[in-house]
C-alpha cells in the first residue's frame, strides 16, 4: 500500500481539479480519486491509468462541484454603478496632479492613435460609392524576365478586344488609355487638363454619373469629352458647357458632351476629363499618340476593368488570360508577361504596384501604422497600470472597507475598471482636441498631399474613437484592478502595505527600454534637423541671393531677356535649362575621340551671362563667346577636367571633346567646383553647354531693395510678353529650400514620436518612483528621526534612478551613434555626430527624470516622520 501511494497521479490534472472544484468538496473527492488511481495502477499501464484519471476528473465537472463565485451572480452590479462612478469622480478630483499626468499621458498617446485611426479610415474609404464595387476586377500584369519584378497595374491595349471577343462571361469591359492631356488656352490662360480615353461602358461599370449629357452617347463619337464639374466651371464659368469646343493643345479640337456630377467619395481612378475611346484610333493614325491599339509590347498605356455577367468564374478567366499571354508573347523573351486578376477593393490599400491609375497606399503601410498604434497604446496602458498601482497604497483601506462590507472581488475589479474608463474618456476629449491641432500639421506634410489625405473625421470615425477609448479604459484598468482587488481586508485595515508587487526588476528594465528609445529618438531627430539645416544653408559655391527664377513656359528666352533687362533693378538675366540643387539633372555622352567609350556627364545648358550671374569662378580660360549660333564651346568644372585626364585646368583649355553623337566642342574655360547637385552627393564632372534651345528658365539677378515692387514689375513685363501663361517665378534660395523642406517631413514625424516617447518614459519613471518611494516611506521616517539630512535622503532615493538614466543614456547613445552613422554616411556633405547632441539628450532626460523623481522625493522628505511611524 505504501509503495503504491508514492505513485502520484498527474499533477496537472490535480491542479485543474483544484481550480474548478469547490473547496468544501475537493478534499474528499480528490481522496476518492487518488484511491481509485492507485487501483488503476495495479490493473493498468501508467498511461492508461493517467488517461482514466483524467477522464474521472473531467467527469466530475458538474453543478455540484463547480466553484460558486459571487461574480457570477452579480456580474454587472447595476445598483453599485452610481456609487463607483461617484467614488471614481471624487478620486479623480482629489488627486488633481495625478489625474492630470495620467490624462495627459494617455491623451497624447491616444491622439497619435486617433490620427492613425483616421488615416486608416481615410485610406480605406476609396471607391465606396460604386454600387458594383465588390464585383469589379481589373487585369494586371507581371513581366517575368524584367529586372524589377513587381506587379504592374497596366495592361496592353489589345487585351480589351481579345477579352470582348473571346470571353463571353464578362458583362462590362472598360478600358482607360493614357495620353488625354494637354494645355487648354482659356481666356488667355493656359490650364492643364489631365484625363483618359475610355469607352461608354464606364458609366455602367462604375457609378460615375453625368449631371448633363447622355451617358449612352456622350463617349461614343470621336473627339467628344466629358469634364469633371469643377473643371467645367473653371473653363466655362456661367456658360453652358454642353456642345462647346475645347482646344486641347497637341491633341486637337474636342466637343463637350457631358459634365460629370461631383463624386460622392474618393476613387482611385483620378481624372479631370474623359474622352471617347474612338478618338484614340485616329490620333494614333495621325501619329499624335504613339501606336498602342495592336501593340502587345506597350505594357504601360492602359488599364482594363470589368465585371462578370452572372457568377464569377475567376479560375476560368485566368485560364483564358494565360492562353492569351501564351499566344501573344514569346517565351523567354524580354516581354514574357503573365496576367493577373485583381479585385477593385484590393487596390488601395493594396499591394505595392507599378503604374497605378491614381495614388494608392501600399497595405504594408497600413499594417505598420496598426503595429505602431498597438505599441503606443501598450506603452501607455503599461504606464497607467504602473502609476495606478504605485498610488494604490493610499487606497487599500478603501478596498478593505468595501470588502468587509461585503464587496466581492468582481465588484472591486468593476470599480477600478470604471475608474480607468472614466480617465480614458477624459483623455479622449483632450486627445480629440490635440487631434484637431495635429491634423493640419499632418496634412501640410508633402507626403500627405501626395496621398490625398483628407482627415475629416466624420461621425463614424468618432464612434470608432469612442469605442477605442472604452477599450483602452478596459485594458488599462484591467491590471490595476486585479491588483487592487487581491487585497486581503484584514491586511488593508491593519495598515500594512498591501499585496507585494513582483517584478520590480522587470519594471526597471522596461523603463530603461523606454528611456533608451526616447534618447535614440531625441538624438536622431536633432541630427536629421541639423543635417537638413546644414544642407540648406551651406555655401554651394554659387550665388543664389536676389535671383528670381522665371519659368519660360515655352517662350523665347532671347526675346524675353532684353525686355527684362530694361527694368532698372535687373542687373542681368541668364538662361538655363535647369536649376541647380533642386533634384533634377540632365546628362549627355561625352568622349574625347570617336573611338573612345563614351561617359555620361551632367550638364547645364546656359548662356554667356550664367557664370557672371551665379558668381561662378573661372579658374582657367574664358567665358563663352556671346551670341553663338552653333554649339562650339563648352565650359567644364575642375572635376570634369580631372576626369577627362587633364593634369591642370589650364591644360584643358583648347581641348576638344565630342558631346552626344557628333557635336564637336572646344573647352574654353574651367570653373571652380560648385555643388550643382543635391548635397547628398559628391561634386561630379559637369559641363556648361552653350545651348539656348534647351532653356526652361530665365534667371534674373535683381537689386533686392524692394522685392514686392520688383516682382510686380517683373510680372507686368511677363504679362505683356505672354498673356496666356501666369507669371511663374521663384526666388532661387526659396526654390532650393523648398526642395530640401521635403526632408522636414521626417523631422516632423520623428519629432512627434520623440515627444510621445518622452512623455511615455516620463510617466513610467514617475510611476516607478512613486511606488518605490511610497514603499520606503517608513525607512525615510526612521532615517529622519536618526538625523539624516535632506541631501542624504535625496541621494538615497534618487541614486537608483540616476543609475537608470546613466545606463539608458549610455545604451541610447551607442545605438544612436551607430544607427545615425549609417544614414549620415550616405551623405557626401554631412554634419558630425557631436557629443553636444548626446549631452542635450542626457540633459533632457535628466530634467524630465529630475522633475518626476524630484517631486516624489521632495514629498517623501517633507512628510512628518511621526505620521508615517504612528502605526508601529
Amino acid at each position, binding site marked *: 500500500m*505504501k509503495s503504491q*501511494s508514492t505513485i502520484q497521479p498527474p499533477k496537472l490534472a490535480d491542479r485543474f481539479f483544484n481550480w474548478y472544484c469547490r473547496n468544501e*468538496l475537493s*478534499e474528499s473527492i480528490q*481522496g476518492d480519486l487518488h484511491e481509485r488511481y*492507485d487501483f488503476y495502477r495495479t490493473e493498468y499501464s501508467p498511461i492508461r491509468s493517467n488517461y482514466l484519471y483524467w477522464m474521472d476528473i473531467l*467527469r466530475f465537472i458538474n453543478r455540484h462541484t463547480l466553484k460558486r463565485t459571487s461574480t457570477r451572480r452579480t456580474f454587472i452590479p447595476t445598483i453599485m454603478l452610481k456609487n463607483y462612478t461617484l467614488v471614481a469622480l471624487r478620486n479623480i478630483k482629489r488627486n488633481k496632479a495625478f489625474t492630470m499626468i495620467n490624462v495627459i499621458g494617455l491623451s497624447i498617446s491616444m491622439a497619435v492613435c486617433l490620427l492613425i485611426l483616421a488615416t486608416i479610415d481615410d485610406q480605406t474609404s476609396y471607391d465606396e460609392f460604386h454600387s458594383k464595387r465588390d464585383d469589379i476586377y481589373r487585369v494586371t500584369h507581371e513581366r517575368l524576365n524584367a529586372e524589377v519584378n513587381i506587379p504592374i497595374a497596366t495592361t496592353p491595349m489589345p487585351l480589351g478586344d481579345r477579352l470582348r471577343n473571346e470571353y463571353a462571361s464578362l458583362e462590362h469591359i472598360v478600358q482607360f488609355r493614357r495620353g488625354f492631356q494637354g494645355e487648354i488656352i482659356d481666356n488667355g490662360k493656359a490650364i492643364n487638363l489631365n484625363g483618359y480615353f475610355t469607352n461608354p461602358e464606364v458609366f455602367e461599370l462604375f457609378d460615375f454619373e453625368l449631371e448633363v449629357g447622355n451617358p449612352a452617347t456622350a463617349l461614343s463619337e470621336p473627339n467628344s469629352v466629358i469634364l469633371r464639374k469643377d473643371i467645367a466651371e473653371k473653363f466655362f464659368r456661367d456658360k453652358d458647357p454642353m456642345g462647346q469646343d475645347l482646344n486641347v493643345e497637341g491633341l486637337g479640337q474636342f466637343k463637350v458632351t457631358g459634365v460629370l456630377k461631383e463624386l460622392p467619395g474618393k476613387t482611385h481612378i483620378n481624372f479631370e476629363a474623359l474622352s471617347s475611346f474612338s478618338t484614340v484610333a485616329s490620333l494614333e493614325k495621325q501619329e499624335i499618340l504613339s501606336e498602342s491599339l495592336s501593340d502587345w509590347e506597350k505594357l504601360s498605356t492602359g488599364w482594363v476593368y470589368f465585371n462578370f455577367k452572372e457568377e464569377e468564374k475567376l479560375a476560368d478567366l485566368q485560364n483564358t488570360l494565360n492562353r492569351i499571354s501564351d499566344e501573344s508573347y514569346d517565351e523567354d523573351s524580354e516581354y514574357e508577361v503573365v496576367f493577373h486578376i485583381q479585385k477593385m477593393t484590393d487596390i488601395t490599400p493594396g499591394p505595392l504596384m507599378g503604374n497605378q491609375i491614381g495614388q494608392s497606399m501600399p497595405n504594408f503601410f497600413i499594417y505598420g501604422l496598426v503595429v505602431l498604434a498597438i505599441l503606443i497604446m501598450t506603452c501607455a496602458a503599461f504606464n497607467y497600470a504602473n502609476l495606478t498601482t504605485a498610488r494604490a497604497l493610499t487606497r487599500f483601506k478603501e478596498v478593505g472597507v468595501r470588502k468587509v462590507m461585503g464587496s466581492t472581488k468582481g465588484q472591486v475589479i468593476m470599480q477600478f475598471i470604471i475608474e480607468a474608463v472614466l480617465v480614458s474618456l477624459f483623455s479622449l476629449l483632450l486627445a480629440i482636441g490635440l487631434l484637431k491641432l495635429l491634423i493640419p500639421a499632418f496634412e501640410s506634410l508633402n507626403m500627405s498631399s501626395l496621398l490625398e489625405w483628407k482627415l475629416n473625421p466624420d461621425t463614424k470615425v468618432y464612434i470608432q474613437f469612442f469605442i477605442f477609448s472604452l477599450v483602452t479604459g478596459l485594458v488599462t484598468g484591467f491590471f490595476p484592478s486585479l491588483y487592487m482587488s487581491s487585497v486581503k481586508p484584514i491586511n488593508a485595515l491593519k495598515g500594512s502595505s498591501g499585496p507585494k508587487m513582483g517584478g520590480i526588476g522587470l519594471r526597471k528594465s522596461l523603463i530603461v527600454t523606454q528611456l533608451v528609445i526616447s534618447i535614440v529618438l531625441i538624438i536622431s531627430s536633432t541630427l536629421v534637423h541639423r543635417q537638413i539645416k546644414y544642407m540648406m544653408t551651406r555655401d554651394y559655391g554659387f550665388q543664389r541671393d536676389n535671383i528670381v527664377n522665371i519659368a519660360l513656359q515655352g517662350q523665347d528666352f532671347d526675346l524675353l531677356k532684353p525686355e527684362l533687362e530694361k527694368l532698372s533693378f535687373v542687373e542681368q538675366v541668364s538662361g538655363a535649362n535647369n536649376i541647380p540643387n533642386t533634384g533634377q539633372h540632365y546628362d549627355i555622352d561625352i568622349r574625347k575621340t570617336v573611338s573612345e567609350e563614351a561617359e555620361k556627364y551632367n550638364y547645364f545648358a546656359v548662356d554667356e551671362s550664367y557664370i557672371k550671374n551665379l558668381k561662378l569662378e573661372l579658374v582657367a580660360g574664358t567665358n563663352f563667346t556671346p551670341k553663338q549660333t552653333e554649339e562650339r564651346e563648352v565650359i567644364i568644372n575642375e572635376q570634369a577636367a580631372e576626369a577627362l585626364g587633364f593634369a591642370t585646368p589650364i591644360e584643358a583649355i583648347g581641348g576638344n571633346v565630342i558631346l552626344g553623337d557628333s557635336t564637336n566642342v572646344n573647352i574654353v574655360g574651367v570653373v571652380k567646383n560648385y555643388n550643382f547637385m543635391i548635397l547628398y552627393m559628391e561634386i561630379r564632372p559637369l559641363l556648361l553647354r552653350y545651348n539656348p534651345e534647351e532653356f526652361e528658365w530665365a534667371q534674373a539677378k535683381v537689386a533686392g531693395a524692394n522685392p514686392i515692387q520688383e516682382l510686380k514689375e517683373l510680372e507686368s513685363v511677363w504679362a505683356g510678353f505672354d498673356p496666356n501663361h501666369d507669371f511663374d517665378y521663384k526666388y532661387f534660395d526659396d526654390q532650393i529650400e523648398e526642395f530640401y523642406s521635403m526632408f522636414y517631413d521626417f523631422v516632423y514625424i520623428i519629432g512627434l514620436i520623440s515627444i510621445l516617447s518622452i512623455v511615455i518614459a516620463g510617466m513610467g519613471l514617475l510611476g516607478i518612483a512613486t511606488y518605490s518611494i511610497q514603499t520606503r516611506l517608513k525607512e525615510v521616517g526612521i532615517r529622519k528621526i536618526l538625523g539624516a539630512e535632506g541631501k542624504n535622503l535625496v541621494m538615497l532615493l534618487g541614486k537608483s534612478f540616476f543609475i537608470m538614466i546613466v545606463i539608458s543614456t549610455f545604451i541610447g547613445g551607442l545605438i544612436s551613434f551607430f544607427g545615425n552613422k549609417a544614414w549620415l554616411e550616405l551623405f557626401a556633405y554631412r554634419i558630425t555626430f557631436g557629443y553636444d547632441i548626446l549631452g542635450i539628450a542626457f540633459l533632457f532626460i535628466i530634467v524630465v527624470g529630475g522633475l518626476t523623481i524630484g517631486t516624489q522625493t521632495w514629498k517623501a522628505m517633507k512628510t512628518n516622520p511621526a505620521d508615517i511611524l504612528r502605526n508601529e
Partner: protein
Amino acid sequence: MRFNLGEFEEIVLLVVAAQNDDAYGLSVTTAIEKELKRSVTMSSVHTALYRLEEKGLVKSEVGGTTKSRGGRRKRIFMISSAGKDALLQAKDARTHLWSMIPKIVFEGQ
C-alpha cells in the same frame, strides 16, 4: 411523507445503508460495480450522494485521515431516518406491486 427516489438513487441509498458508517464515494462505487455487475462512474455516484444529501436522506461528515489517500480525509455518508423511511416506503411499494401480480403470470415459465 412521500419520497421520490430515482432508481439509481435508491441503489446508492441501499448501499450506503448496507455499508453502515463506512460508506464514502469510492466504496459505494466499487460496491455497485461488484454486487450489481453494473458499471458506474464515480462522479455520478458522488452526484447522487449530494442530491440525496440535499433531500435530507443521507447525512455526511468528514472522517479521519488515512495514509492511502495521500492524507486526504474521507467524506463518510450515513443514512438518515428520513432515508430509512424512504427505503422502507420504496420497498413497501414494490412488495405491494408484487403482490398484485397474478400467479399465472410467472407460472407459464
